[in-house]
């Protein structure tokens, strides 16, 4: 019997038959994989054939919280979406903040499994023991913020919602899943999988309490961790002041801030799109997810010019970079507008921006012919950015349809796939590996394609400066540690940003006292390693291998042209073999029998 944290119930929704079943959470799985990303990955691994087409009826989508969701643990509002990702073809897990996860727990469930395919658009309503699939015909086609509003009108004004937008409905590979219309499970194209199933979203409300195993000890762990977070200069103040966009000036100052599709890594106009400028010009208020003392979210408005009056959530650091610097754009209003549009369509801002940047380079080099471009796609043009995002979101004209498939398929169509800044077909986030060596190894080995939040080595390589960003030594261990820690953390239901203040031991303590499992820091890290290896096994079965653990040729061969990291390239070979060794994998990146035994992954 699980003593606390978990609700112990899973909702399985079969869209083909319309049947909804309640199942018990398996205690032995919860002990081995916790909840969230870990438990969800285990379900996908066991139930989904890794070789299927991700947009076919056979794929499944898991929406999961962890045992800390819905409790008083700090920053415990996360929700994970796990599936076989259509952008990459790998296992995919994308997560979002907000309040949805806790609401699902309050309604009595740890996770929801969506399988099959509905004949007509539907949504799911979960409320006080009622779970029902309802028609969503009249919401289909609506933007994510409108969908959120309508879902609440149709169900309960205080319901928490999850929805896809037009991008997901049209199965764009850049489609995300939004929560309450503005918190995004952004990456890997998870929204397209729901779209392929005719599944619009979920509204949920509940009032059940989440019990913890050791209430006294848990309360102590909560106040200890909250105190650490409020004393820490970043989580206790800086984050709320500038949001994640504070990183614009940091990354640019070290010359690892990619611009113009990574043709260079220093942006002389960075200040114009920085967190500092955003605060001065556009910030309306801060926002925090459930139980979060950090409060990094923002709501902004455009105060002048042709987009005057538009407002929305964000933008995050990643988005001001992808829609701004990566496209050579310093017009902050255009960046904000593009960001709001992406949210409305339900499109990942990182991949969308990097895809626009790729299109701009293809256009400027003459590979994307004028007749395919409805207007000039020039670097630096805010107007071209906004119009291109509209084409992409609405899949208008030939170019719009190509853009909606992401940069790799776009560049491949125009015969220059090397101009896609992606790994495993997923676009880069806002860090140039040539100027921060370890993050390149992380991009190359990430189980869901290029990604920073699978192993945020930036914390050590740049922010705390614990290790030298330009050295290769020790980076394999560093990457592994961050990857394992994050995999475990993503399975608890709390936010990655807590790790700027908390260590694995603090989080293990929250977990142990909530669930009654005896998990110390070492066991916690091992759970993360187990999840990482299970994800790897799925990808190997899906056909991925060592050759896919790489970076675009530009990053490996073209030196950065200007700024503080001028002259640098990324020598991935100096780290990759080491990384496999540290992981206990063979030269081809396959986990050895010894490692699988050690991690108790041999049962199947």
């Amino acid at each position, binding site marked *: 019997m699980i003593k606390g944290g978990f609700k112990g119930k899973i909702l399985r929704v079969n869209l083909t038959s319309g049947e909804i079943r309640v199942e018990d959470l398996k205690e032995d799985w919860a002990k081995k994989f916790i909840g969230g990303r870990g438990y969800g990955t285990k379900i996908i691994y066991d139930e989904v054939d890794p070789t299927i087409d991700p947009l076919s009826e056979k794929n499944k989508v898991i929406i999961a919280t962890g045992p800390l969701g819905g409790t008083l643990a700090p920053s415990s509002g996360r929700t994970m979406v796990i599936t076989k990702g259509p952008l990459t073809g790998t296992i995919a897990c994308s997560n979002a903040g907000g309040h949805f996860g806790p609401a699902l727990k309050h309604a009595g469930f740890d996770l929801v499994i969506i399988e099959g395919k509905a004949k007509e658009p539907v949504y799911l309503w979960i409320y006080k023991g009622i779970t029902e699939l309802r028609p969503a015909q009249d919401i289909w086609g609506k933007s994510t913020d409108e969908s959120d509003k309508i879902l609440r009108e149709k169900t309960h004004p205080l319901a928490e919602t999850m929805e896809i937008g037009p991008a997901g409905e049209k199965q764009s590979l850049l489609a995300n899943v939004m929560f309450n219309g503005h918190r995004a499970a952004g990456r890997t194209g998870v929204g397209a999988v729901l779209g392929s199933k005719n599944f619009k979203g979920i509204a949920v409300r509940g009032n059940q309490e989440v019990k913890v195993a050791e209430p006294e000890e848990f309360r102590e762990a909560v106040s200890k961790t909250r105190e650490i977070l409020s004393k*820490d*200069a*970043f*989580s206790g*103040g*800086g*984050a709320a*002041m*500038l*949001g*994640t*966009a*504070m*990183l614009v*000036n*940091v990354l640019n*100052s*070290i*010359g690892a801030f990619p611009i113009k599709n990574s043709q260079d890594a220093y942006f002389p106009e960075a200040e114009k799109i*920085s*967190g*500092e400028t955003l605060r001065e010009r556009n910030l309306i208020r801060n926002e925090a997810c459930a139980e979060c003392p950090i409060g*990094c979210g923002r709501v902004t408005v455009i105060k002048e010019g042709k987009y005057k009056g538009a407002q929305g959530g964000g933008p*995050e*650091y*990643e988005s001001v970079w992808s829609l701004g610097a990566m496209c050579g754009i310093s017009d902050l209003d255009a960046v904000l507008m593009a960001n709001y549009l992406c949210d409305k369509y339900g499109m990942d801002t990182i991949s969308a921006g990097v895809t626009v940047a790729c299109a701009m380079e293809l256009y400027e080099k003459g590979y994307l012919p004028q007749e395919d471009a409805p207007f000039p796609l020039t670097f630096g043009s805010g107007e071209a950015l906004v119009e291109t995002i509209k084409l992409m979101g609405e899949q208008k004209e030939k170019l719009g349809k190509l853009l909606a498939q992401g940069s790799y398929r776009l560049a491949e169509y125009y015969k220059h796939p090397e101009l896609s800044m992606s790994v495993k077909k997923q676009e880069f986030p806002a860090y140039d590996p040539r100027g921060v060596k370890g993050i390149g190894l992380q991009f190359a080995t990430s189980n869901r394609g290029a990604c*920073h*939040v699978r192993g*945020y080595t*930036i*914390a050590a390589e*740049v*922010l*705390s*400066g614990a290790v*030298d*960003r*330009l050295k290769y030594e020790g980076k394999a261990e560093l990457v592994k540690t961050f990857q394992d820690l994050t995999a475990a953390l993503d399975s608890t239901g709390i936010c*990655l*940003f807590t790790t*700027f203040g908390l260590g694995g031991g603090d989080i293990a303590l929250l977990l142990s006292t909530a669930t009654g499992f005896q998990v110390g820091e070492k066991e916690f890290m091992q759970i993360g390693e187990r999840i990482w290896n299970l994800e790897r096994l799925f990808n190997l079965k899906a056909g991925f291998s060592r050759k896919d653990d790489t970076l675009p040729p530009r990053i490996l061969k073209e030196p950065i042209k200007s*700024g*503080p*990291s001028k002259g640098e390239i990324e020598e991935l070979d100096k780290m990759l073999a080491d990384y496999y060794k540290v992981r206990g994998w063979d030269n081809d990146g396959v986990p050895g029998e010894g490692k699988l035994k050690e991690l108790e992954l041999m049962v199947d």
Partner: protein
Amino acid sequence: MRIKVKAFATLREVLGKEREVELKEGALLKELLSPLYLPSEGVEAIIDSQSGEIKPAILILKNGRNIRFLDGLLTKLEDGDELIIFPPSGGG
């Protein structure tokens, strides 16, 4: 020699956005980070008055390189250097 000092985020309030400081040839970073050249609240925000060391998680870059991987407070400054100071940062 002239050194440019830039500050970001919360440190702008105490150090100003950007300033140029005139120093004697061969000066070390330690000398620059004193009330002689910078507002005293700014110095307090970055240097631990007890130990005289840089406060944890304060990021100081000389021409884009973290001074921890140069010679720390004993890093030699040169004419035209750009010094950038960040308060503890995070995000992702």
